[in-house]
């Protein structure tokens, strides 16, 4: 009788163990923070909720040169955290084998509020953005099929994908979704400007900064709209065309002549560190940028109507405007260890 009871208990125990070993791992959910006063993000998190495991997998991929054909270049090669995830000192970044691109690496932040990606809006969803640099011959020059094959031969990656997606076979879809989990969390909203708006400690503006903010709201805000400092539109900002590259911008995607020379309005957050400036990185200093808008605009047919009225600023006003732009620097973002190279490995 006693034996029977023991057997029964053993049976129940083994049933429980089997059940638990097959139960999916509980993933740690992450709530996406919408800063106070900000609009809702354009990207919806309902289909693929954010998880800590997904974030860490995406982070590992972001810093892993396995994404490039010869294993020499990772996302972080051109998107360096300390400069707002852009390529400092490089007007045009270089991909594998020193191949040089034609456009300035965009800074990465607050991407969930974007609708279209790249300077010309060629990519319509953040989930598929990474495909562009992976497959571009002058960037990583790889195929998605081959990256997936390489990842499937890694025991560590197969484990991580299994944890996140419940499937130890890496697929193109899961690779892209993992990278998305990381990049949509690169959010910057703790600059001096933000603290000033929220009336928090460390947010007290100097007279110059305050005056600069007023000038900004008078002349710049129609395109670089607060709080994201972009209206997410495509505009011709009057740059003289570069005859060596002859980049027609948005028209390349839409094939509509009205979109000729239009480029995405970039965010100005962390602009102090994200030099050089403009889609082709032609300006290295903010003073050059301000001088372009006050005196360098080429008035062609489809110049942004927001630039129709000339901007006139005195030298002191220009200095104040730049003083204000410096308040958009968010050191908590630029130095956040959570976004940096993942030193711990499984």
């Amino acid at each position, binding site marked *: 009788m006693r034996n029977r009871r023991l057997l029964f208990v053993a049976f129940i125990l083994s049933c429980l163990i089997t059940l638990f070993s097959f139960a999916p791992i509980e993933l740690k959910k992450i709530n996406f923070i919408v800063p106070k006063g900000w609009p809702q993000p354009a990207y919806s998190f309902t289909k693929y909720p954010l998880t800590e495991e997904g974030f860490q997998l995406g982070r590992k991929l972001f810093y892993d040169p396995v994404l490039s054909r010869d294993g020499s270049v990772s996302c972080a090669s051109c998107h360096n955290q300390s400069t707002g995830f852009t390529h400092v000192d490089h007007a045009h970044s270089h991909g594998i084998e020193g191949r040089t691109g034609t456009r300035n690496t965009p800074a990465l932040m607050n991407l969930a509020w974007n609708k279209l990606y790249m300077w010309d809006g060629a990519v*319509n969803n953040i*989930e598929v953005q990474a495909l562009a640099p992976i497959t571009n011959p002058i960037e990583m020059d790889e195929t998605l099929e081959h990256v997936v094959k390489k990842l499937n031969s890694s025991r560590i990656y197969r484990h991580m994908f299994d944890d996140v997606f419940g499937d130890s076979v890496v697929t*193109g*879809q899961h690779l892209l979704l993992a990278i998305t989990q990381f990049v949509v969390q690169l959010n910057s909203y703790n600059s001096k400007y933000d603290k000033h708006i929220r009336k928090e400690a460390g947010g007290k503006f100097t007279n110059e900064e305050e005056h600069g903010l007023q000038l900004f709201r008078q002349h710049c805000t129609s395109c670089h709209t607060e709080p994201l400092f972009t209206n997410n539109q495509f505009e011709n900002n009057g740059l003289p065309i570069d005859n060596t590259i002859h980049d027609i911008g948005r028209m390349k995607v839409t*094939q509509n002549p009205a979109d000729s020379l239009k480029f995405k309005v970039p965010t100005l957050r962390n602009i102090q560190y994200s030099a050089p400036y403009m889609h082709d990185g032609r300006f290295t200093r903010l003073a050059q940028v301000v001088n372009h808008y006050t005196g360098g605009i080429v008035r062609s047919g489809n110049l942004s109507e927001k630039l129709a009225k000339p901007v006139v600023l005195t030298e002191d006003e220009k200095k104040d405007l730049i003083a204000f732009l410096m308040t958009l620097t968010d050191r908590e973002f630029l130095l956040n260890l959570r976004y940096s190279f993942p030193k711990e490995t499984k």
Partner: protein
Amino acid sequence: MKRIYSSFLLCLFFALFSATVHAKGVLVIKIQPVFRGKTLILGDKTYVSEKGDPMTIEEFKCYISALNLTGPKSSYPIKNSAHLINAEDSATLTYKIDNIPSGVYNTLKFNIGLDSLTNVSGALGGDLDPTLGMYWAWNTGYINAKLTGHSNVCQTLHNKFEFHIGGYMGPYVTVRKASIQLPDIEISDKTPATLTLQVDVATWFNDIHLVSMNNVVTPSKEALRIADNYMNMFQVSQSDENGK
């Protein structure tokens, strides 16, 4: 004990009842790639287009999606039915559809290619996974249909011609609607019904000369023209016992 027994019987009865009322069946669609009615052989076999261009076919891939079966009494939209046909992969030439409400159907409607919603929905899986060579990275969107090969009239590298037909935004929308009249197909829970469709790639070349048009790989006027050419490439196979 008796009560448990009777409730079990009741459940069984309901299960049987609902099974008979909502009987569902299976349709197996077989796809035969052909060139002017003759089985398409990839690689060495030479075909001649309507305009007289000789050619060999290297690759043929095509999405079908949003399938809908219609009969005199009912219409059944098949959810998430995007399917990639690849002439090289025989597994993709059989497409099984489950859970079709039983009844008689005589029309099959579907899209050749993918609608705009699919094109803006981010990273998708299964037949829509971007690793399948049917996705553009340089300008987001799916390639709806792909046909490549060689012809000695093409003044190109290795005499290659390449048609990657895609584009979901106006004015270059390349998805096409197909509507095919079927012999009456009876779907029941007994044996699966079969339907054999021929897909004739010769239609792509209806009104084009390969010497002047041999590289269409972006959303464009040329892409629209080829999509219009191939919109009738699917037909019910006459040689098979369809619907039986």
